[in-house]
């Protein structure tokens, strides 16, 4: 059989930052930002639960909600995200619980990590591999990803609360938080 040479039709970005970025470190006095969306009520509930724990540990909490990404509103979203990232010391970005929402969760998390902010993206189990794939394609293969069980949004608030409790310690570990005795007690 004769052999021929064919040209590769693919293109991918070549650069990568495999670093997970800086650890969150001590939490007291830090400004912790939650990136929310419009779809997942379970993520609102979990964020509220975790926010209360962070505040009890002496941190301040703020929220930024992703809405429309096209048109003038999309342009404004990009500006407001950039501005919000300047007001926080740590970012927790969620929720990667579908295709496009994993996309935007990771894209915004990569933006935070690239801004030098300690960042954790939060994904449900089914979208864990996808989150890592998109992070790598976004040039941050080392992005920290904390994984929650799946399915999640289909549960009631009473069912989601124990999940928030059970996965908080894992979040602290993934984000590289170092707790003081007072924080541990809180």
């Amino acid at each position, binding site marked *: *059989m*004769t*052999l*021929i*040479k*064919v*040209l*590769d*039709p*693919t*293109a*991918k*970005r070549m650069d990568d930052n495999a670093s997970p970025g800086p650890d969150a470190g001590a939490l007291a006095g830090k400004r912790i930002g939650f990136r929310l*969306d*419009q*779809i997942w009520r379970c993520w609102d509930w979990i964020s509220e639960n975790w926010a209360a724990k962070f505040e009890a540990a002496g941190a301040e909490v703020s929220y930024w909600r992703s*809405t*429309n*990404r*096209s*048109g*003038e*509103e*999309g*342009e404004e979203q*990009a500006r407001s995200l950039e501005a919000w990232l300047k007001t926080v010391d740590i970012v927790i970005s969620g929720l990667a619980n*579908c*295709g*496009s*929402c*994993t*996309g*935007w969760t990771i*894209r915004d998390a990569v933006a935070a990590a690239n801004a030098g902010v300690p960042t954790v993206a939060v994904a449900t189990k089914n*979208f864990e591999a*996808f989150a890592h*794939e*998109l992070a790598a*394609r*976004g*040039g941050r293969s080392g992005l920290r990803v904390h994984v929650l069980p799946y399915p999640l949004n289909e549960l009631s608030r009473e069912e989601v609360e124990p999940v928030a409790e059970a996965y908080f310690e894992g979040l602290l570990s993934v984000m590289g938080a170092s707790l003081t005795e007072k924080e541990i007690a809180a």
Partner: protein
Amino acid sequence: MTIHKIKPSTRSNRVAKPLVSRDCGPAGCEVDWLTSGRVEVEDSIEAFTEASVELGWGDGLPLIPPTDARVRMFLSENDRYPDELIARMPDNSECTVEKIVINAVMAGAPPESLELIIAAIEAISEPDFELYGVNATTAPVFPGFIVNGPVRDALKIPYSYGCAGGVATRANAIGRAIRLIMRNVAGQVAGVTSQTTFGSPGRLASILMGEWEEKSPWAPLAERRAGVKGNAVTAFSTMGTMNVLDTTSTGAVAFLEMIGKSVSYAGANCYSPSMEYSEMTIGINPICAEIVAREVPNIEDVQEIIWKNAAASADWLQGLHRGQLESQGRVREDGKVYATPEPKDMVLFVCGGLGGLHALGLHSFGSSLSQTKAIAEAVPAAQAAE
């Protein structure tokens, strides 16, 4: 709460073009302009098709091996340099003319379709098209394309019978070339970069159709939407085709009422609470268009009648769904949720066979906004050099 209206942004994906010497031109240059890696395969379509699937390049259908000779021949029929950067894709990968041509060769697209493909890629890479979400989503969405101008006939883009799929024309190869670029450069691969739950037959060769301008009572879509006269392509995101059958209506208002009500259902993209707005694209058949225009000559009025009917009573929606839409301010004073913020967001065009009876619903994805681009005139490199 106020309704979120759709206003295009000023953002653009225009990219700087590399500044290299163009003295010799793409046709007669001795320099190796083609920078893509080469892979050795057996010289047969069967072997290459099999290899392409293993390499992650293909869609499973037969492919033409993109040899240097074929790629250079394709380029020589056009006045484009292979290193020209057309767009940056969602993962920041570079979509160059070279990558476009390699994929076009593989799909069997004719060289004279290059400018159309380039315009299509430029359109979907605009930030307002939101290709990042289109690629990643669990939805079956893919970019579809409506072509205006004389290029429709030159490239045999269907706009009559079977225009949304199934007509024997090389337009299918052009659509497939765009899909291969989506796969190989833009990053829409099911199970890898796309979480699409079901996918769509449109992810193989897209929907590439024309507007039947000669049968349309209204100005061409590209002119109405973007002020572009002549050859142009409008890219829109779509979940696939939805048929609207109407064998009973008489008169414009009845036809439009049937269309509006039919495209409006609880699980349609336009009622998703994941964003506050979306567009809706609808193809109206030439017979219906003629009947409608006799009574309702202005396209804006046609859009408004469809829009008024493309609404759902909030009470009809499931409780949690309604709650999310209410919190977004989308339940209006009349107790309804409208499919799009305003009548102008109903993207209408004329196409289809003369059998009439049907309308074509093309539900969009998320808040992805349709984009129109002029198609440059294809000039063979040799002719351009003269």
